C-alpha cells in the first residue's frame, strides 16, 4: 500500500489558493439549489443599475451620433431678441455654410378670427436644414412648400383651428397658406420645451408678419456646417466656438457643437440616470436581505460538510475561503445575469417607447457603466453575505455526531467586521461618485438604514411580544401566535422584506401624489389664468381696458420683460465656473429679465435694501436669494448680463426670497429701471379672471384680444400646466416603474423567507394532521399569521414611507407634503396581494404535502 508519508512535503501555509478555489467550486456541484433567491435578488438590482447605465449610454451615443442633425449643423450660435449684424454674420460665414433660423411664440388665427392657437413659429432661410430632413405627411418638398407666403404646420394646429392644407391662416399681419403637414423636424430637440404646435415659415414671410420687432421675444439661431476638410474633433470645434466668442466679446451668443448638441438634454439624462441608479441601489440593498437569508440558509444546510472539513483538518480560514469562493461564484452568476438583462433593456425600451424618447437610442454600452453595475453587485453581495458566512467559523466538528446544542449566532470575528465596514465605505463612496446631487445619496442611505433598522427591530419586538402573549383557547389563533413568536419563525424576515418594499412604495406613491397635487390641484387657486407675451408697452393700457371692460373684476399684473444671458459672475466668465448642478440652469442660455422700482409681488427682500423709486445711479440688481447662495454671490458682488448684444455690469443691491410656485410674474434678476428702460422691450402680463367666469366669456375675450392685438401671444396657464403634466406623467411612470422594482426586490426576499421556512411548515402541518387537525384549521392559522404580519408591516411602512416622502418633498424637492389616502390604500392592497400570493402558494403546498415522506425522513 502507498500512503502519504508523515514527512511528505507540506506547503508552509497549507493548500495553495488554486486548490482551495478548486475545492470550493467542486463543493458547489450540489447545484444552485437555495441560491435562486440570492441570484434573483442580485440580478434584479444589477439589472436596474446596468439598464440605467446602458440606456443612458445608448441615449448619449444617440445624442452624439445624431448631434449634427439635432443641432442642424456642426455648430450653432443663438441669441435672443437681436438678429446677427452684418459683421457677426460674416464671422459665421467664414466658418462654413450657415443657416439662419428664428423661433418665437405667437398666435395663429383663422382668417375669420373665430379660432386661434398659440404656435411655436420657426422661420427658416433657404439653406435650412443643413443636416437631416424636414418630413411632411405624404412626402413633398419642404423647401418648395415654403416659397411665397406659406407655411408647413404640425397637424395639431390644423385640428385646433379646423383648417386643412391649402387653407390660409393669419400669423401676425400676414396671411399664410398651409402647404403641408409637418411630421418630423431634425433639430427640434435643440429648441426649448414647446407649448404649442410647430409652424414653419420662411424668413421673408416672417418680415411680412411684422412680428420681429425690437423687444420681441425671438431667438435667432445660426447653424454652421463646416467644409468636409475642416478639423472637427471636439477640441477643434470648441476652439472655433471660443475664437468666435473672442472675436465678438459682447455679442452674447450661446454656442453649442455637435459633440454635445443639447447640454440641457445631456444634463436631464445625467440626472435621471443618477436618480435611477439610486433606485437600483435601493433595490439591491433590499435584495441584500434576501442575500443574507439565502447565505444563512446555505450555511445551515452545509453545516455537516463544514464539520466534515473540520474533522479532517481544514482550518477555519480554509473553510471560510471555500464558502466565500462559492458565494463569489454565485455572485458572479447573479451579476452576469443582471448585466445581460440590463444590457437588453435599452433595446426593449427603444422597441416599445422609441418614439416617446427625445432622441433615438443607439446601441452602445460603455465598459464603465457595466463595471459600475458589477461593482455594486459584488459589493452588496459581499456586504450581506459576509455576516452569515462568518458563521462557518462557529461550526464545530462535533456537529457530526450531535446537533448543535449551542447557538451559532453571535458577532462575527473582528476581521469580518472590519471587512464589512470597508464594504460599507466602498459602497457609499461608489454611490457618492456616481450620484448627483450628493445630498441625495445621504438621504437615500439614511432612509434605507432607517428602514432596515426599524423593521429589524419591529420584527424582533413582534416575535417577543407573541412569545409572551397568553395562549388563546382557539387552536388556529394559538398556532398563529406561536408561529409568530417562534425563534426561527418567519416574523423577522417577513416584516423586514415586506416592510422595506412597502415603505418605498408608499414614499414613491405619496411623492407622486404630492407632486400631482402641486401641479394640478393647488396651482390654479393662486396662479393667473393667462400669460400675455410680447405686449408692446403702448398697447398695454388699451389692452387692460379692453379686458376689464369685457370681464369686470379681472386682475392684471404687468412687468417689462427682456431676455438676457449671465456672462460673468464677479468678473469671472460663467463658462469657467463650476456651480452646483441645481443652479446650473441659471447659467444655461438666456433668462427673463425685468426692472421695477418696487418689490415685485410674491417676493420678499431678505438681505440688503430695495432701491428708491427715483434711483438713477449705476445699474443695480436684485437676485433670488437661494440661487445667489448656490452661485456664491453676495451683496455688493457684480454680475454681468448680456442684453441685446450689450454687456451690463450690475451690482447686487439686495437678495429676494421668491415664491416661484405662485406663478406670479417673477424673475431671478430684477434691475433698477434706468438699467433696462431704454432698451427696446415688450411687457409680460398676467390675467386673473374673477372666480366663476363663464368659459364662453373667457373664449370670447381671448378671441377678441387676438383680433385687436395680433402681436400679443396668449398662453392659457391651465394648458401650459397640462403640457408640463404630460411630460411629468411620463417621468412619474419611469419613477414608478423604478420604484416598483424595489417592491419586486421585497417580494423576492419574502418569497425566499417563505421558501426557507417551507419544510418546517410542512412538517409541522403533517404532524398536526397526524394528530387530527383539520386542513381548515391549519389554513386559518396560516391566514391569521400572514394577515397579522402583513398588517403590521404595512402600517409601519405607511408611517415610515410618509416620513421618507415628507423628507424627500420638503428637503430635496422643496415642495409641500400632501397625504394621500389612495397611496395608503395602494400600499395595503399591495401588501395584501403579496402576502396572499406568496403565503397562499406556500400554504397550498403545505396542505397538499403527503405526510409519509416527511415523517420517515425526520
Amino acid at each position: 500500500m502507498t500512503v502519504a508519508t508523515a514527512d511528505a512535503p507540506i506547503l508552509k501555509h497549507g493548500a495553495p489558493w488554486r486548490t482551495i478555489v478548486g475545492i470550493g467550486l467542486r463543493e458547489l456541484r450540489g447545484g444552485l439549489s437555495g441560491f435562486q433567491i440570492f441570484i434573483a435578488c442580485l440580478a434584479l438590482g444589477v439589472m436596474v443599475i446596468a439598464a440605467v447605465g446602458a440606456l443612458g449610454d445608448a441615449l448619449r451615443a444617440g445624442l452624439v451620433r445624431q448631434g449634427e442633425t439635432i443641432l442642424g449643423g456642426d455648430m450653432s450660435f443663438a441669441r435672443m431678441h437681436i438678429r446677427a449684424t452684418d459683421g457677426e454674420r460674416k464671422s459665421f460665414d467664414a466658418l462654413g455654410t450657415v443657416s439662419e433660423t428664428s423661433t418665437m411664440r405667437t398666435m395663429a388665427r383663422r382668417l375669420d378670427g373665430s379660432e386661434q392657437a398659440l404656435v411655436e413659429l420657426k422661420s427658416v432661410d433657404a439653406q435650412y436644414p443643413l443636416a437631416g430632413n424636414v418630413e411632411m405627411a405624404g412626402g413633398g418638398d419642404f423647401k418648395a412648400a415654403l416659397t411665397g407666403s406659406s407655411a408647413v404646420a404640425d397637424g395639431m394646429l390644423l385640428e385646433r383651428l379646423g383648417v386643412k392644407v391649402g387653407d390660409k391662416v393669419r400669423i401676425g399681419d400676414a396671411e399664410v397658406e398651409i402647404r403641408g403637414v409637418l411630421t418630423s423636424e431634425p433639430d427640434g430637440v435643440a429648441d426649448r420645451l414647446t407649448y404649442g404646435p410647430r409652424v414653419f415659415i420662411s424668413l421673408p414671410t416672417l418680415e411680412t408678419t411684422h412680428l420681429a420687432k425690437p423687444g420681441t421675444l425671438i431667438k435667432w439661431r445660426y447653424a454652421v456646417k463646416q467644409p468636409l476638410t475642416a478639423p472637427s474633433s471636439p477640441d477643434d470645434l470648441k476652439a472655433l466656438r471660443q475664437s468666435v466668442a473672442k472675436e465678438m466679446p459682447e455679442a452674447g451668443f450661446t454656442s453649442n457643437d455637435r459633440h454635445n448638441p443639447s447640454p440641457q438634454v445631456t444634463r436631464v439624462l445625467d440626472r435621471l440616470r443618477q436618480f435611477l441608479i439610486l433606485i437600483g441601489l435601493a433595490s439591491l440593498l433590499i435584495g441584500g436581505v434576501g442575500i443574507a437569508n439565502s447565505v444563512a440558509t446555505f450555511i445551515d444546510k452545509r453545516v455537516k460538510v463544514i464539520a466534515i472539513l473540520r474533522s479532517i483538518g481544514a482550518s477555519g480560514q480554509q473553510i471560510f475561503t471555500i464558502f466565500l469562493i462559492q458565494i463569489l461564484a454565485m455572485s458572479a452568476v447573479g451579476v452576469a445575469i443582471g448585466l445581460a438583462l440590463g444590457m437588453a433593456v435599452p433595446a426593449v425600451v427603444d422597441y416599445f417607447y422609441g418614439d416617446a424618447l427625445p432622441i433615438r437610442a443607439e446601441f452602445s454600452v460603455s465598459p464603465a457603466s457595466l463595471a459600475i453595475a458589477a461593482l455594486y453587485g459584488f459589493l452588496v453581495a459581499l456586504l450581506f453575505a459576509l455576516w452569515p458566512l462568518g458563521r462557518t467559523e462557529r461550526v464545530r466538528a462535533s456537529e457530526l455526531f450531535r446537533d448543535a446544542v449551542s447557538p451559532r449566532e453571535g458577532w462575527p470575528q473582528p476581521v469580518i467586521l472590519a471587512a464589512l465596514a470597508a464594504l460599507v465605505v466602498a459602497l457609499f463612496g461608489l454611490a457618492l461618485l456616481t450620484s448627483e446631487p450628493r445630498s441625495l445619496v445621504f438621504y437615500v442611505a439614511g432612509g434605507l438604514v432607517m428602514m432596515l433598522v426599524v423593521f429589524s427591530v419591529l420584527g424582533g419586538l413582534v416575535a417577543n411580544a407573541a412569545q409572551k402573549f397568553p395562549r388563546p383557547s382557539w387552536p388556529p389563533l394559538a398556532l398563529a401566535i406561536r408561529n409568530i413568536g417562534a425563534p426561527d419563525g418567519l416574523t423577522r424576515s417577513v416584516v423586514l422584506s415586506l416592510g422595506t418594499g412597502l415603505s418605498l412604495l408608499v414614499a414613491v406613491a405619496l411623492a407622486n401624489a404630492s407632486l400631482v397635487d402641486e401641479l394640478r390641484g393647488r396651482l390654479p387657486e393662486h396662479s393667473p389664468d393667462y400669460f400675455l407675451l410680447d405686449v408692446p408697452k403702448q398697447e398695454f393700457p388699451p389692452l387692460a381696458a379692453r379686458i376689464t371692460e369685457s370681464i369686470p373684476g379681472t386682475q392684471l399684473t404687468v412687468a417689462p420683460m427682456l431676455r438676457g444671458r449671465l456672462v460673468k459672475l464677479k468678473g469671472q466668465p460663467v463658462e469657467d465656473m463650476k456651480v452646483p448642478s441645481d443652479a446650473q440652469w441659471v447659467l444655461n442660455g438666456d433668462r427673463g429679465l425685468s426692472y421695477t422700482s418696487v418689490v415685485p409681488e410674491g417676493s420678499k427682500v431678505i438681505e440688503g435694501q430695495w432701491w428708491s423709486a427715483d434711483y438713477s445711479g449705476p445699474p443695480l440688481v436684485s437676485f433670488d436669494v437661494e440661487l445667489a447662495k448656490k452661485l456664491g454671490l453676495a451683496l455688493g458682488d457684480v454680475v454681468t448680463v448680456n442684453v441685446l448684444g450689450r454687456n451690463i455690469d450690475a451690482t447686487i443691491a439686495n437678495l429676494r426670497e421668491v415664491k416661484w410656485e405662485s406663478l406670479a410674474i417673477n424673475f431671478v434678476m430684477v434691475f433698477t429701471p434706468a438699467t433696462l428702460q431704454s432698451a427696446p422691450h415688450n411687457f409680460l402680463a398676467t390675467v386673473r379672471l374673477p372666480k366663476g367666469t363663464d368659459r364662453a366669456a373667457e373664449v370670447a375675450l381671448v378671441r377678441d384680444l387676438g383680433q385687436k392685438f395680433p402681436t400679443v401671444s396668449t398662453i392659457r396657464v391651465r394648458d401650459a400646466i397640462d403640457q408640463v403634466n404630460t411630460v411629468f406623467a411620463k417621468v412619474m411612470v419611469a419613477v414608478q416603474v423604478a420604484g416598483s422594482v424595489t417592491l419586486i426586490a421585497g417580494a423576492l426576499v419574502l418569497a425566499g423567507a417563505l421558501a426557507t421556512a417551507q419544510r418546517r411548515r410542512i412538517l409541522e402541518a403533517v404532524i398536526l394532521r397526524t394528530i387530527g387537525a383539520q386542513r381548515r384549521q391549519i389554513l386559518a392559522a396560516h391566514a391569521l399569521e400572514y394577515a397579522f404580519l402583513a398588517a403590521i408591516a404595512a402600517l409601519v411602512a405607511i408611517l415610515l414611507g410618509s416620513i421618507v416622502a415628507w423628507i424627500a418633498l420638503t428637503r430635496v424637492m422643496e415642495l409641500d407634503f400632501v397625504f394621500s389616502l389612495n397611496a395608503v390604500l395602494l400600499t395595503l392592497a399591495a401588501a395584501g396581494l403579496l402576502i396572499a400570493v406568496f403565503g397562499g402558494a406556500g400554504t397550498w403546498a403545505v396542505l397538499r404535502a403527503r405526510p409519509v415522506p416527511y415523517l420517515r425522513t425526520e
Partner: protein
Amino acid sequence: MPNTIIQLKDIRLTLTSRAGPVEILRDVSLDILAGQSTAIVGPSGSGKTSLLMVMAGLEKATRGEIVINGKDISGLSEDQLAAVRGRDIGIVFQSFHLVPTMTALENVALPLELAGIPDAFTTARTLLDDVGLGARVDHFPAQLSGGEQQRVAIARALSRRPPLILADEPTGNLDGKTGQQIVDVLFGLRERIGATLVLVTHDERLAAMTDRVIRMMDGRISSDEGKRSAIRAVST
C-alpha cells in the same frame, strides 16, 4: 516500553442545552499506548462517543487535560486542533460523513489537498485501490453502497498515515457481512501503517478483536479489561 499516545486526565464534559446543563463525562482518566487497539463499549448515552470525540479534539472538554501524541491539546484553538487532526488523527464515523458533492476520489484526496500535499489525487487513487474501490473512484457517495462509503471514509481517514485512528461505530450502519469486510479493511490497514486504533462499538465480537476493552456507564469508566495483556503483548 511503548509511548503513551493518548493521555486523558480528569476529563469532565458538561453541555448546556435549553433544558439546562447535561453532564456527559465525569472525571474520566485514561492512558492508551501507541500501537494498541482499544474498544470503548457501553449502553447508549453512556458517553462513549463523547469520549472518542474529546480524544479527537472535536469536542472541547469542560475540564481536564488531554495529551495526544505528546502534545497537550486541551487549550488549543479550533484551527490548531484541526491541524492536529490533519496530521495525527484519522477519524471514521458511523454515518461515513462523506462530502456528498464530491466523488470518492475527491473525498479521499481532500485532507491531502487541504494540507497542501502534492500528488494528492495519485495517493488517493492508490488508497482506493487498497480498499477495493479502484473501479469506483469517480462515483459520488449517493452512488455507493453503505459498505463502499465506509471504505471511502476509511481511506480518507488513513490518507495522511496518521499515528492514531479513531472510529465511531464503524460498522453500526452496516449489515453483518459488510461490517466484517469493513473491520478487515480497517484492521488490515491499521496494522500496515502501525497506527493506534480506538473504536466505539456496540458489537461485542468487534470489541473482542481489540487488545483492550473499556466499558462506560453514566459518563464514567466502569471497567477496563486487557490493559496489562495488551502492554505485555506489545512489550514481549
